[in-house]
């Protein structure tokens, strides 16, 4: 397979692999951009490549980085000198159960595996959100630095406390939004709109950045118009 070795040999960035790769990448980029004109076979071709390579890539790296060290080597270390973790037989069995989903007669066993991870994730997320996103946020609001920072800091920090309370009340459903509750909800919606506005601005920024990234690839790596 010497031609393949040659393909990858050379100074960094100038190998045949990189030169050809850049061309392939550029053509695929243009295939996707053709969608801007309208949906067409080039776009569909690129999209089907994307799905296939993505899935196979994931599978391969899942095997090398997760399944092999954690399951296969743990059970059969061979001469690597690592200890045998016999109890990894159990998750191994659960993993096989999970895949029995493909066999209608035995697919009920896959629920055991599913139940295992659903239970684990339910608990891990429960404590994670309870601590970091609930109790810690209460603590952070309590310790809002209202004093000792001057007038502007006082106003801004107070506005933050008011905002947290108003947003919580906006999403309170056990009482009609009338009277004092109505006022709180109105204030809440103002905060939400400002936040969504910020989110809007940031999202625009992100999308534009992706385009800049691709354009840099086309103009620099492919066409060498810029450096």
């Amino acid at each position, binding site marked *: 397979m010497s031609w393949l070795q040659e393909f990858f040999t050379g100074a960094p960035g100038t190998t045949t692999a990189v030169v050809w790769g850049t061309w392939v990448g550029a053509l695929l980029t243009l295939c996707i951009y053709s969608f801007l004109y309208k949906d067409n076979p080039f776009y569909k071709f690129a999209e089907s490549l994307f799905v296939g390579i993505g899935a196979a890539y994931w599978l391969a*790296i899942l095997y090398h980085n997760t399944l092999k060290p954690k399951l296969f080597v743990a059970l059969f270390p061979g001469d690597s000198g690592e200890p045998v973790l016999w109890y990894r037989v159990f998750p191994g069995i659960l993993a096989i159960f999970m895949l029995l989903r493909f066999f209608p007669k035995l697919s009920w066993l896959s629920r055991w595996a599913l139940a295992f991870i659903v239970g684990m994730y339910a608990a891990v997320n429960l404590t994670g*959100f309870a*601590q*970091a996103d609930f109790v810690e946020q209460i603590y*952070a609001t309590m310790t809002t630095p209202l004093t000792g920072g001057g007038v502007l800091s006082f106003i801004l920090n107070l506005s933050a406390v008011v905002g947290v309370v108003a947003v919580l009340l906006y999403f309170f459903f056990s009482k009609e939004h009338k009277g004092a509750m109505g006022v709180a909800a109105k204030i809440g919606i103002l905060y939400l709109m400002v936040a969504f506005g910020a989110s809007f601005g940031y999202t625009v920024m992100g999308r*534009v*950045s992706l385009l*800049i990234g691709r*354009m840099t690839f086309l*103009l620099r790596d492919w066409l060498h118009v810029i450096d």
Partner: protein
Amino acid sequence: MARGFNIRSIDRRIIFVLIFVAVAIPLIKPMGLPIGVSPPVQSLYDAVDALPPGTIVMLGGDYSPDSMPELQPMTIAFLRHAFKKDLRVVITCLWPASPPLIEAALTPLVEEFGKEYGVDYVNLGYMTGGPVTILGMGNSITGTFPRDYYGTPVGEIPLMDEVSNLSDVALVMEVSAGTPGTREWVQQAVSRFDVRLGSGTTAVGAPNFYPYVSSGQLIGLLGGLKGAAEYETLVGAPADATKGMDAQSIVHALIVFFILFGNVVYFVSKRSAAVADGRSRS
């Protein structure tokens, strides 16, 4: 369209061409607009900068190619800062696509700073599991990542002798494109194991994380390409993010113009339509 031609239903392909031009021209003819640094970026930089040489930090690379233009510059700027300060870096990935992207960032930097794999830095590769994996690292990093990206058992990697769990890491920099990412790190590592966490996120995610900045759960935050450009400025090595800022400025201005102009056209035509429509409602 069915309504017949008017300026409102202008072919969107014209808009596409304008956007294309607004990105390409500033890239070809840069203006070099100044980059100001925002407080959440400064505080992250200061925290990293204050670490003594030899300190072990962790880089969490959790993104895929679709957010690479925003996040790859952050990874590069952070690694550059860390290598410049002689910090040692342990890299972990919760997204399957990250390890080769991180490798691509590392290759030129390792050459430039003369760093040695396994001594100055290590890439532990991808591990599935998200929050559970972070939790696992709180107890044992080597138990959670038994081998590195290249399949070497961690027992054979000198740097990993000094790292047993997250408390042996002075700071974690999480470069995050979504789930699992910054939120999971805050929940499972910061709150649970008292880890010091800084984060770089896509612009789409950044506004969500300000409560964590305010509460101190995040020591700093880089939001999108601008955040990356700010970090590049602080590290003193302007690169891709900084170069993109001119185009970013021009396109933002163009989009703001579109919103304003679109609204003016809309309300003017609605008023004239209301006048013309006065007698017969369709």
